[in-house]
């Protein structure tokens, strides 16, 4: 296959004890290919290669080929691997679970069509319920056929109430749901919204209206992990209009390398909070950079 990946890069150091510009340069050519195939933005790839080169070649790297077996030796390959890995992890930051609820708080889910908002809303609801919170799901997608029914079925499967009513004013529905949640002293209200393009002015205005009506404590953007290079512009488009405080990387149970996540994270500075790994409502986890780093490096 075209991508021989990170393993091949590292294999170039077999039998060598020194990292120099030449062997690091060759190894990084493999890594470069691997990153581009993982949908990582070319600009980020270039910065990354520069930083790893600096780490490996710029510094005095002490590598001794095992003379004393009790001495902790770092092989050239290990040092190279660790440098690549650490740089990626640094770029991505660590995940953060939502903090405990104070008062009745609002979590808003937004994103492009089909990225997993409705399913993720249910997953988050289940996760928070298991943490002891009283949760309300709100069916605020007034556009997609059977969207309310989809959330209703999911809510039922996890024992979480779903607020849903007819009408095409999403903001009004959200406002009403929030009033009801406050009256019941619920902990968290999760708003499931319609999928939308960041360039669709009407729908982005609808999103603004929902934000104005509910003043969310947390606004999360769902990003499909198989997205290509445009993921960055999409995320920036949403970040320009919303105060994003978290990304959720979905469908990570696929075999997409997920490189777009790296681009979104570095372009917007928004932390990746969670990843979802399947259609079942249990399949959500707090994001771990190490996992995604090794996946991106292939």
């Amino acid at each position, binding site marked *: 296959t*075209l*991508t021989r990946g990170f393993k091949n890069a590292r294999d170039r150091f077999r039998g060598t004890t020194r990292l120099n510009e030449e062997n690091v340069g060759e190894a990084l050519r493999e890594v470069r*290919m691997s990153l*581009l*195939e*993982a*949908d990582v*933005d*070319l*600009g980020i790839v270039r910065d990354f290669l520069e930083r790893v080169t600096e780490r490996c070649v710029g510094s005095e790297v002490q590598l001794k080929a095992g003379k004393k077996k009790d001495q902790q030796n770092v092989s050239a390959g290990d040092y190279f691997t660790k440098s690549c890995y650490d740089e990626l992890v640094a770029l991505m930051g660590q995940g953060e679970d939502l903090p405990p609820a104070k008062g009745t708080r609002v979590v808003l889910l937004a994103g*492009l*069509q*089909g*990225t*997993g908002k409705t399913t993720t809303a249910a997953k988050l609801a289940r996760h928070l319920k298991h943490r002891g919170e009283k949760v309300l799901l709100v069916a605020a997608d007034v*556009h*997609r*056929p*059977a*969207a309310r*029914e*989809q959330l*209703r*079925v*999911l809510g039922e*499967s996890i024992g979480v109430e779903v607020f849903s009513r007819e009408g095409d004013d999403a903001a009004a529905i959200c406002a009403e749901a929030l009033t009801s949640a406050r009256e019941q002293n619920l902990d968290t209200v999760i708003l499931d919204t319609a999928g939308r*393009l*960041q*360039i669709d002015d009407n729908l982005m205005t609808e999103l603004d209206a929902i934000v104005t009506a509910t003043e969310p404590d947390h606004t999360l953007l769902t990003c*499909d992990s*198989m*997205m*290509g*290079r*445009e*993921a960055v*512009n*999409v995320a920036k*488009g949403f970040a320009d209009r919303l105060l994003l405080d978290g990304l959720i990387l979905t*469908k990570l*149970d*696929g*075999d*997409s*390398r997920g*490189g*777009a996540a790296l681009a979104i994270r570095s372009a917007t500075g928004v932390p990746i909070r969670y990843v979802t790994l399947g*259609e079942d409502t249990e399949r959500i986890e707090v994001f771990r950079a190490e996992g995604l780093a090794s996946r991106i490096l292939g």
Partner: protein
Amino acid sequence: FSRRNTLDASTLSEIEEILFAADLGVKTADDLLEAAKQAGSTDAVHAALEARALEILSGVSTPPEADVSGPKIVLIVGVNGSGKTTSIGKLAARHIAAGKNVLLAAADTFRAAAIDQLGIWAERVNAEIVKGSPGGDPAAVAFDAVKAAQSRDVDVVLIDTAGRLQTQGNLMDELGKIARTVKKLVPDAPHEVLLVLDGNTGQNAIRQAQEFSRQVDVTGIVLSKLDGTAKGGVVLGIAQEVGIPVRFVGVGEGVEDLIDFEPGAFVRALFD
């Protein structure tokens, strides 16, 4: 590209960035970068890229479909959320506008409200629909739909399936089973297998095309969500490496938002 007469390293690097940003992928980007180099000057580059891209796409263009006797069976497949159900609604509308009788098979028996969603589309476009019960065997629904189509003077059967990732072996096998099941009633079925591919997808699209083709004979791609900002350049890689043509393009969420794939318009937009 800045106006110079020779292609220096920085111009080539600019071109390379444009190719990757359109999701062209390493192999195809290299191919087109070669074409750009051959062009010799920046003025000729644009034309060279478009010409080479068009050449790649023409390599897999399909002849117009032959008429089938009896209902034409179309299977719609793809990963989760790519736009299958919506694309079926749009396709049904086209056929109905052309005077055909259309029947939809709600063979996504898995996802919450999937059957309801297709039911609403059937009402919108005036198509018949065969549903199974939630959790039932998708192959059985497909079978019932084809059987009903045969006895009801239906021209086209569009079979909706659940989204599935190519990493889910058992679900991929299920697709093969659906195809084999409809073959029992109609030996040449499915006459078409459309892979609905989200236009935002990156390099994983090539794997999707490869893996889905292993299970069913994918005859064409519906490239959805091209009304967004992504360019969908992956279809060039798919043309080169998997040999599947794009048949339709989804350009919105409404019933009219489906257009025929037009390679010339596509490559112009690609390098816009």
